[in-house]
């Protein structure tokens, strides 16, 4: 069996120390310094979390350790169990098995109203009969915060999300982006231990979504709240997260930093889900992988058949390598997309639009890439 990529080699201690230093201690006026004490322990721990609906398993033995101040995304196609996981953390769905520990406290025994989590729902779920200020103040009211302090914190929260002048506005008079910010402010003002975001940007148009991603990241960095984001958008997950949990059909496929997930996908599913990838049939013998008419040095790889995955942007045109013919050449603005037919299959190549010469449609050419840009996995079924 061919070896899969090594598990992400992270210096866990170093990471925790860094996160504690840069995030836990740079809390804004919104946040209480005592949280810094928790910075050295795993803040939110999901252990063997499982949810069954009759015979169907929605979430299968999910285990995840989240550090204080970390931004983790649950990424996967619809039906992969990411939303169910979030709902279990929030307390709206009861786990069939497993535990959820928050700062050493067993959350599964706590009612949703008492968990102290901040949640931003996909539809924002703003109270339509209350103004933005009243919406944001609601959580503070439930906690018995005194009126003057409520007003102060609401004003701070509105300023944080950039909506200082909209305190008296009703939701129906706000744009989608503004509603989303109010929802975020409402979740953050209560100083939650964990912030849960359920596909919060999916209802926004593409341009607004990009802007909000940048802002969301900035806000999260400022207040340092531990955050869990659920999304099906891989670009979003990669842009926002410290780590990504890739899920498929209830199971965890890989947990790693975005760069690792992208460059070193652990399974074929992960490789295919994030970005474009070419999956080519290969056979390895004595440390050399043969793909079509090309050979690559892969020391340490097990003999036998396997799949070789390589990202389109890591492939270059050369005089020697995998022979092929250019079938299509498509201009996409800041890069070119080429489809090359080879005897290892149809290969997608992405080349930057920097004025370099590229083979024309119908031309014969050769493709090459570095061995370290290629991942070997089990043959795709």
């Amino acid at each position: 069996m061919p070896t899969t990529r090594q598990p992400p080699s992270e210096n866990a201690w170093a990471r925790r120390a860094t996160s504690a230093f840069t995030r836990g201690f740079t809390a804004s006026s919104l946040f209480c310094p005592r949280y810094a004490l928790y910075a050295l322990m795993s803040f939110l721990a999901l252990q063997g979390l499982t949810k069954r609906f009759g015979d169907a398993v929605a979430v299968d033995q999910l285990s995840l350790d989240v550090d204080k101040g970390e931004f983790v995304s649950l990424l996967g196609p619809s039906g992969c169990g990411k939303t169910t996981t979030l709902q279990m953390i929030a307390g709206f769905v009861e786990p069939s098995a497993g535990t959820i520990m928050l700062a050493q406290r067993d959350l599964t025994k706590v009612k949703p109203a008492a968990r102290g989590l901040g949640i931003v729902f996909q539809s924002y779920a703003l109270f339509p009969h209350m103004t933005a200020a009243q919406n944001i103040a609601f959580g503070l009211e439930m906690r018995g915060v005194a009126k003057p302090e409520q007003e102060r914190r609401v004003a701070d929260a509105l300023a944080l999300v950039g909506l200082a002048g909209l305190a008296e506005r009703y939701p129906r008079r706000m744009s989608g982006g503004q509603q989303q910010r109010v929802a975020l402010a409402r979740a953050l003002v209560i100083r939650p231990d964990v912030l849960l975001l359920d596909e919060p940007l999916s209802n926004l148009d593409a341009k607004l979504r990009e802007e909000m991603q940048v802002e969301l990241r900035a806000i999260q960095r400022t207040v340092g709240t531990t955050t869990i984001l659920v999304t099906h958008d891989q670009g979003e997950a990669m842009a926002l997260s410290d780590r990504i949990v890739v899920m498929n059909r209830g199971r965890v496929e890989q947990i790693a930093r975005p760069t690792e997930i992208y460059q070193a996908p652990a399974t074929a599913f992960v490789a295919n889900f994030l970005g474009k990838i070419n999956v080519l049939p290969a056979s390895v013998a004595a440390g050399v992988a043969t793909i079509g008419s090309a050979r690559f040095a892969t020391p340490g790889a097990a003999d036998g058949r396997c799949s070789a995955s390589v990202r389109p942007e890591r492939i270059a045109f050369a005089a020697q390598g995998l022979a092929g013919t250019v079938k299509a050449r498509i201009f996409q603005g800041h890069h070119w997309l080429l489809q090359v037919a080879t005897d290892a299959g149809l290969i997608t190549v992405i080349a930057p639009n920097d004025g370099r010469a590229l083979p024309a449609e119908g031309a014969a050419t050769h493709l090459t890439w570095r061995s370290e840009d290629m991942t070997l996995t089990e043959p795709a079924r």
Partner: protein
Amino acid sequence: MSTAETRRRASTPWLLAGPALLLFVGVVLIPIAMTVLLSFHDWGQYKGIDPIITLKNWRDIATDSYFFEIFLRTFRIALMVTAISVAIGAPEAYILNRMGPPWRGIFLVIVLGPLLISVVARTLGWALLLGSTGLVNVALLRLGLVAAPVQFMFSETGMVIALVHVLLPFVVISVWASLQRLDPQIENAAVSLGASAVTVLRRIVLPQVMPGILSGSVVVFALAASAFATPAIIGGRRLKVASTLAYDEFLNTLNWPLGAAVAVLLLIAVAAIIVGANRFTERRYAEVFQ
């Protein structure tokens, strides 16, 4: 577009709606106008309807305490019916909304279905239940709650009970429609922010359902104030409301002008309440809802 086409375009909707419009003008507007006119006519037992214009009927209604009492009773009953219907209909709509698929549909049919049954059949059931030997009294006597049968029939209480039964589905419909428009995530959001179940109901669900409750109340009030068959059967000849009074004048006494005046007054009162309540709802909730 040529002027001929523009003219044709502009007249199409009128042509389409024309037949219905003619019917309504002829069979609704004109009769109502005639009835208003009739209320100004005079009447005598031997001369019949005298087509002169006089304020006699209106003066009678305004000054005679008999009429005042009847109208007061009518609106008092309507108010009680509205209050009780809303008090039990709104929670029921909420409970139905929280039910799962098979039960929700079944109970909705059970609650809304009676609307399709003739009001006479429904009221007959109450006449049977509320009589001195009816089941309600039998139960009360057996349980020892009363010493002698309670007189429900020919009483306001009996009328209120029967009218509540008849008009309850309208409240359920109205509140149900309001609940359907709610985003279920909103309740979850309130819970996640620490609200108890009672707080969620009071601060989150109720304010959003208010427009539905108000419009349901208006419908029930209007229908209760103008109800005829139920007060006639349960209230009998002695206990009159505005509708049965008009019936009496028209078909028993044959004093058509007076009957017409009572009817027109009822129409004006009900129309005023409907329009007033709708205005109020729109102004109060326009900022918040569609």
